[in-house]
């Protein structure tokens, strides 16, 4: 009998939303305990700051350029390499429960298997989908064809109207406001807590675990859709965090002139989006102007986000209890992370986009190795990426990482990280939406964040961002054109271009907005 693997992902969760990472707003004792017992990563970064490319990186162990999913709406080919398939071949039972999003959601023709699967059950045709033999899927609400939505429609139709309609009548991401402050993507949701998708994901995970034999090894990807917008957690739980008492984030300059001066020192698409004159990607509500965001709206969004993080933590606690009841606790590896962050008020912005700063790029990552492995608790400050997860799962399972994986098994401490060359992390962005193109490549190394822009709608290819995290942890001072930083910039750029991953050819087509 080998080690079991529970991969827990959330969606769009910031680093600073966990207590173990210094967060004060949400209480996350379950993840905090895992961090205390295991390895907490202070500089974990996604290879893309939107869902489909990032999740494809987790599954394939490849950078977006290589697996080819360059933006939401580009489906990962069904024959793409998959760590789940590797684990299945090694004898693991495999499941994915919650949000997958390797294939577009907007799919009236049901061209994509994830959307049609729920009509037929939980076991995919042919026995596995991307290496998973069991899938029960959900997304951020009750629209669409996935298992959670179908269950809600069948069993609790009275509760459907409580959710925020994530998409408006024009199929754009909804800009409508709600709550006490009219904040975008906020809604009071009277749904019972135990019907909300966070608890559903935990319940279905436990049901699948209950179906397994005691001696079986398993890999379960438990994938919570929250705390991604919309922010519509069960109303009964909203009182946990009074938004009126939420401090403004350190990254939110309350003074408008200060805020706009910071934005003006960045490449121009930052300010253009803030002013509502350029929306570069579908994920940002097209009809919402960030400059209208108020301090109280930032507070309310952060409060609701914190509630959603707490519900996830509690749901994870229930699953861990069930695993202990099954007698698997000593052999259980838990990896907790997310696909990317959320601006959540930083720079006066919400949501996400081509903005490679810590709000979106610094993500929670905790690996609690199986107690039977007798790992020593540690904090890793060297940079790691989601691209390193797949080889980590292979290492846990005792199998070699296939050559197509581009990362390395996560280090167990900084000494290990240094010895094995964990020096840099790469992140990339490519968006092309109705004539607006943005392309950037980012290197995170030492205490620097260096982003280079390729030619696009708003950029001529000479722009960039350079931040010294030691002196400027909030990335408010762009040193790209600072002569004093010219040498380090040249070194970082050289490193960035020298380490670009191979590019898939031909390029995969965009098949849907999301």
């Amino acid at each position: 009998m080998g080690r079991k693997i529970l991969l827990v992902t959330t969606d769009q969760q910031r680093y600073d939303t966990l207590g173990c990472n210094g967060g004060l707003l949400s209480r996350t004792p379950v993840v905090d305990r895992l961090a205390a017992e295991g390895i907490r990563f202070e500089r974990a970064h996604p290879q893309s700051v939107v869902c489909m490319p990032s999740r494809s990186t987790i599954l394939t162990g490849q950078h977006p350029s290589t697996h080819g999913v360059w933006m939401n709406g580009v489906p990962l080919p069904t024959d793409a390499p998959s760590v789940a398939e590797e684990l299945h071949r090694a004898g693991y039972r495999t499941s994915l429960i919650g949000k997958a999003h390797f294939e577009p959601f907007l799919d009236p023709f049901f061209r994509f298997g994830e959307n049609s699967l729920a009509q037929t059950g939980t076991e995919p045709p042919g026995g596995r989908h991307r290496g998973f033999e069991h899938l029960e899927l959900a997304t951020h609400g009750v629209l669409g064809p996935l298992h959670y939505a179908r269950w809600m429609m069948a069993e609790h139709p009275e509760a459907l109207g409580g959710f925020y309609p994530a998409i408006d009548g024009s199929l754009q991401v909804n800009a409508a406001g709600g709550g006490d402050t009219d904040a975008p993507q906020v809604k009071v949701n009277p749904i019972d807590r135990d019907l909300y998708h966070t608890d559903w994901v935990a319940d279905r995970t436990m049901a699948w675990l209950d179906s397994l034999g005691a001696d079986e090894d398993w890999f379960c990807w438990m994938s919570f859709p929250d705390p991604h917008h919309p922010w519509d957690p069960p109303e009964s739980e909203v009182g946990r965090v009074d938004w009126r008492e939420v401090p403004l984030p350190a990254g939110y300059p309350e003074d408008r002139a200060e805020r706009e001066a910071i934005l003006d020192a960045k490449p121009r698409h930052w300010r253009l989006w803030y002013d509502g004159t350029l929306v570069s990607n579908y994920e940002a509500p097209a009809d919402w102007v960030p400059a209208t965001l108020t301090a109280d709206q930032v507070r309310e969004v952060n409060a609701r986000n914190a509630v959603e993080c707490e519900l996830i933590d509690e749901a994870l606690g229930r699953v861990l209890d069930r695993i202990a009841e099954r007698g698997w606790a000593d052999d259980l590896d838990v990896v907790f992370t997310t696909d990317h962050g959320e601006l959540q008020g930083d720079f006066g912005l919400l949501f996400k986009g081509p903005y490679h700063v810590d709000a979106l790029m610094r993500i929670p990552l905790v690996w609690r190795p199986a107690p039977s492995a007798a790992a020593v608790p540690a904090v890793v400050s060297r940079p790691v990426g989601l691209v390193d997860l797949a080889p980590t799962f292979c290492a846990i399972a005792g199998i070699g990482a296939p050559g197509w994986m581009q990362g390395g098994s996560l280090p167990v401490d900084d000494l290990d990280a240094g010895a094995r060359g964990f020096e840099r992390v790469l992140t990339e962005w490519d968006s092309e939406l109705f004539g607006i193109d943005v392309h950037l490549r980012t290197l995170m190394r030492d205490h620097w964040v260096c982003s280079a822009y390729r030619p696009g709608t708003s950029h001529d290819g000479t722009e960039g961002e350079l931040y010294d995290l030691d002196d400027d942890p909030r990335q408010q001072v762009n040193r790209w054109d600072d002569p004093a930083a010219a040498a380090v910039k040249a070194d970082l750029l050289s490193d960035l271009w020298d380490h670009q991953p191979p590019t898939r050819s031909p390029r995969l087509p965009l098949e849907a907005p999301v």
Partner: protein
Amino acid sequence: MTAKRGSVRHAVRLACPPDAVWALVGAPERVAEWFPGIASCTVDGDQRVVMTGSGLPMPERLLTVDPTLRRFQYRITAPMFVEHLSTIDVHDLGDGTCLAVYSVDVDPAPLALVIGGAARAGLEGLAGLLGLETAPVATATPR
């Protein structure tokens, strides 16, 4: 601001005479044979209703079925579409091959990506039904 209307165009060169492709494209009732995700369809005069794989009926008005130009045009008239026009042209390249071009123009813009993505798969479906090797489909950047 983002575009209200979106346009997407896909094209594929097929190693067969244009009439072989037109025999499929120009027969509205045969769309389910080559367009992935269409389970069935009914045609009544210039009205066609396709039933998508998700069970969504999608009513259409057929505008042009021109065997001389080998041009097929239709509008989807379902309520979620403010306006839609799709055009399929089959061009004779004069060497025993042809170029099939599928153009999609939609308000609201996000639906252009949805219909356009399906259209690209449709071109691959045409090639597959004709027993032709599927070559990469040329794509125009969504505008």
